[in-house]
């Protein structure tokens, strides 16, 4: 196990060098300023006050809001996205619809920010098409009943527009991997559909499901433009808090903005750790 294995080990590591080099140059290095900056105050002196500020009740609530919205849209996006993807891949629909959905999802998953916010304002805003339709044709006044697009619920509805397609795209290869023969084999052995799902399909899909859920969570967590456009920055979520610190004047405290961003990184780190734990357990039988 001498020179051959160490040469092999070297060769192994060499294969991932391009990735690590690229990531270092264009992701880690710029982020470095983020870390350094979070320990600086307005005048550049070293401080941990920014991190102390993170623990204030206002900031905690900010993070909780972000987590709540991200979790809701991640789960919603996962479920509905999965159903939609399954419908076109294995649901017996014409093949062309699958292609259309895939390409559409590619575009829709990045339809965000001001255009998306306004599209929904035109749809379910106070004088939106659907609102007016519901009021005039069906006699249902949703705004009188308390609904407003300028709310957490409204934002979640809007977020789904890019969460759903993302799920569709990510889960499609996994559904593809669900060989039809397995289902037929299961049926021939007398399994009911629910048994098939519980014992065959879901366990196979679970790792991809979890991975997608985390991805969707991170996607929503980092979203800013859409929320800002829809609520004028008045909704209290982490990304808006950060941009406020980076952009404003009186509130301008870059160090705090960096610290807030670091907080986001930590939360993401925890979710990824959770994902890793879950995945290890559900992947056991695949090995």
């Amino acid at each position, binding site marked *: 196990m001498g020179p051959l294995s160490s040469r092999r080990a070297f060769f192994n590591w060499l294969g991932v060098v391009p990735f690590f080099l690229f990531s270092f140059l264009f992701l880690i290095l710029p982020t470095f300023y983020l870390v350094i900056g979070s320990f600086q105050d307005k005048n550049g002196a070293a401080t941990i006050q920014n991190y102390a500020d993170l623990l204030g009740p206002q900031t905690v609530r900010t993070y909780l809001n972000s987590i709540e919205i991200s979790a809701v849209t991640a789960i919603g996006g996962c479920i509905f996205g999965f159903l939609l993807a399954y419908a076109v891949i294995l649901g017996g629909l014409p093949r062309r619809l699958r292609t259309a959905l895939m390409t559409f999802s590619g575009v829709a998953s990045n339809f965000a920010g001001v255009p998306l916010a306004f599209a929904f304002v035109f749809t379910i805003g106070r*004088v939106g098409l659907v609102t007016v339709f519901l009021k005039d044709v069906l006699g249902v006044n949703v705004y009188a009943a308390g609904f407003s697009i300028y709310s957490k619920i409204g934002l979640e509805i809007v977020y789904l527009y890019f969460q759903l397609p993302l799920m569709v795209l990510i889960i499609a290869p996994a559904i593809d991997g669900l060989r039809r023969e397995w289902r037929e084999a299961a049926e021939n052995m007398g399994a009911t559909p629910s048994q098939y799902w519980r014992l065959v399909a879901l366990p196979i899909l679970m790792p991809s499901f979890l991975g997608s859920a985390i991805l969707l969570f991170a996607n929503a967590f980092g979203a800013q433009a859409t929320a800002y456009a829809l609520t004028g920055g*008045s909704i209290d979520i982490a990304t808006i808090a950060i941009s406020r610190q980076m*952009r404003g004047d009186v509130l301008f405290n870059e160090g705090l903005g960096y610290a807030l961003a670091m907080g986001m990184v930590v939360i993401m780190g925890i979710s990824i750790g959770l994902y890793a734990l879950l995945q290890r357990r559900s992947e056991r039988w695949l090995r």
Partner: protein
Amino acid sequence: MTTRHTLTRWAGLLATSTLVLAACSSTGGGGASAGASAAAGAWTPPADLLAAAKGEGTLSTIALPHSWCNYGEALSTFAAATGLKLNELLPDGGSGDEINAIKTNKDNKGPQAPDVVDVGLSFGPQAKTDGLITPYKVKTWDTIPATAKDADGAWYGDYYGVLSFEVNTKVVKTVPADWADLQKPDYKGQVALAGDPTVSNQAISGVWAAGIASGGSLDDATPGLKFFKDLNAAGNFVPIIAKTANVASGETPIRIAWTYNALADKDSLAGNPPIQVVVPKTGRFGGMYVQAISAFAPHPNAAKLWMEFLYSDQGQNLWLKGYCNPIRYDAMVKAGTVDTAAQAKLPDTSGTQLPTLDQITKASDVITKGWATEVGATVK
């Protein structure tokens, strides 16, 4: 809405769109330099400065939307007169973004660094203290009022506007005449600001002005927060950053914005839908913006040339054409160089209060810090 009718016409449009394109492209776009000029003669660039600027070749501006104070025409006129290329950064930016851009690009001589900035009054002195701007006194320096410029020449007022209500009269039948009217139940879910009151100068001023009209003053901005708190509780306030499209669609048919922005919208919408610009009876609040040259400008001579242009009679009149009150207005009226046609179009803004620097700093602090907790338009 007759969707079927619209669809058939839409199909027809698609079929003939190539012809339309061919016809349109020959007439070209933009109405730059439409009939150069009114009362004042065209500006001639000073020769030495022009030569130095030409050596640099480009001017990098930041956060100058073309319909803001008629900047579109100002930029194209400048480019035509000097032959310089224009590099326009961050059109949707606010004053904070502009200062930030200077800071971030301190060591960068590339196209990301701005040469000149146009920021709210309160940003000037701080930028000077931070060493981000460099002094320059234009040829017409003496005709700029002393209260509107930094004695050392670091920053200098360029124009001011007054806060008004931009009203979509297709949706709003009884137009509000004053701030107090906005609280009426007629305007449920109809009133919005044009920016984020924690970062946007325009929005902060909106809150402040509302306060002045309801018992506050230039020294006390807290009634403004209460005004919007009540407005929000009554359900009249819509927390979105209202753009022209929101006003036009009827989603936020009453928008609080500077007169020049509201009037520019009125022109560009051309009756579809009809807009009325109302300067409130009380609480007339004026906001001044200032120009400055970046201390790290990649093209310092181009920057100086731009300033000479803006403070020339022609430059000032172009702002006037955009419904902004240029800072040399009084001097130009006296000298008879003001564009009378544009002057006639300005709304009556008598009784406008312009705050001092200290008042602005104090009020901004109060409003930006208090907005989230007081008004919280806490999106539930």
